[in-house]
């Protein structure tokens, strides 16, 4: 299939606005469930505010959070997609720019990370390309807020490290984030590959529905144990105490080297935002 610059650009622009203004239904559901089961009065009140915030954003066409993030775009290219003559990267960047302008979203990107100046007019998104087996061009926008991105941790474990050590590490990452990155969190974990693979997987884990099942029974058990431990930390909504510390945990794995075991933990605030479309 042939795909045009304008089609990619407009699709990405729409995704930027949708992701930032309409909270993901699985996140909304998780907040609602958390509010129902929460025992702490103030925590219930705060979870209620977050649900009210999602409604206000949608009806006022205002961003869910003022930190509209660093836009991370995942592009999946199917075997039938004909890219000849198309500046795909240019179309994606132009789409982000248009979407962020159209949605009155915040330009939080500085052109130079050291001099901290020269706003980029929204073109500083991060783009990951992947050749996929499924047909069509898949586009996903994840606006990643930096309060929580700053809490990302990568650790290169020894290959003989026990599973408990990895679980302890995930829990420690969340404990260290504490109240600072807007709990209740969604925790994405990437295990395996090289260090960069683990980092990418941990972010892709955030794109999966919160109730998605992990690949194997032992991973599912790991998710359950970690989730339970996180909600027992007592950090709670906004770190002011309560049962709801994690709305969800997702773990993705990849084959790795006999000498290593990279683990990356990427935390998202409760306002986990992403939107996806497949152009066919």
């Amino acid at each position, binding site marked *: 299939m042939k795909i045009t610059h304008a089609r990619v650009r407009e699709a990405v622009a729409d995704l930027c606005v949708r992701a930032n203004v309409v909270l993901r239904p699985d996140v909304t559901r998780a907040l609602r469930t958390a509010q129902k089961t929460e025992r702490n009065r103030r925590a219930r*009140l*705060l979870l*209620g*505010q*977050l649900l*009210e*915030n*999602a409604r*206000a*954003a949608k009806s*006022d*066409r*205002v*961003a*869910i*959070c*003022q*930190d*509209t993030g660093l836009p991370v775009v995942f592009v999946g290219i199917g075997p039938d997609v004909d890219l000849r003559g198309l500046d795909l990267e240019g179309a994606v960047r132009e789409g982000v720019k248009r979407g962020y302008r159209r*949605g*009155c*979203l*915040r*330009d*939080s990107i500085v052109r130079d990370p050291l001099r*901290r100046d020269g*706003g980029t007019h929204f073109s500083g998104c991060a783009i990951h390309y992947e050749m996929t087996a499924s047909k069509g061009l898949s586009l996903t926008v994840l606006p990643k807020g930096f*309060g929580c991105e700053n809490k990302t941790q990568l650790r290169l474990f020894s290959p003989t490290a026990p599973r408990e050590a990895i679980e302890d590490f995930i829990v420690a990452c969340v404990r260290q984030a*504490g*109240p*600072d*990155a*807007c709990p209740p969190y969604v925790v994405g974990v990437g295990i395996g590959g090289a260090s960069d693979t683990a980092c990418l997987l941990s972010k892709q884990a955030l794109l999966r529905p919160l109730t998605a099942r992990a690949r194997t029974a032992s991973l599912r058990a790991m998710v359950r144990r970690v989730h339970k431990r996180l909600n027992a930390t007592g950090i709670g909504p*906004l*770190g*002011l105490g309560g049962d709801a510390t994690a709305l969800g945990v997702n773990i993705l794995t990849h084959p790795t080297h006999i000498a290593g075991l990279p683990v990356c933990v990427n935390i998202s*605030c*409760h*306002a986990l935002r992403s939107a996806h479309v497949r152009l066919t």
Partner: protein
Amino acid sequence: MSASHRKAVRLSTPLDPVAVARLRCGQEVLLSGDVYTARDQAHRRFADLLKKNRRLPFDIRGQVLYYCGPTRTPPGRVIGACGPTTAGRMDPFMAPLLRQGLRAVIGKGRRSADVRRLLKRHKAVYLLATGGAGALLARHVTRRRPVCFADLGPEAVVRLTVKDFPLLVGIDSRGRDIFT
């Protein structure tokens, strides 16, 4: 919300030092009046000005700083999303501003032990706004006027007039901290 609002303390600016001293850690507050947005780069500039013995671009005595960088304003609205940013990054800048008479700051997350001591010494408070509730908080803003550092874009200092802005007392003027 209604049950909590019944026992919330109403505060208005300019802040009455006695009312501020009466606030207790964990209390719910509804703030009305003016607050000034300022985050990382604005704080750096405040600090540079004070280091050179120059005056701040506005009189900060008795005022409230809000650690916030709003989105741009959608057409027909007063302001875009305007929730708090992480307060801890502003910790190193607190001392000179409190010496100038700053009375309250609004943000989210933990502060250092130094900030607790400073707030106690200057009889000032740290108030918490709900992180990630930017769209809801925008509904409590009735007016927005630029003040200074327009070149900083979303980090410019803007005066917001707020009505019943929902907050919690994070650190009170006795240095008691909700997180510890």
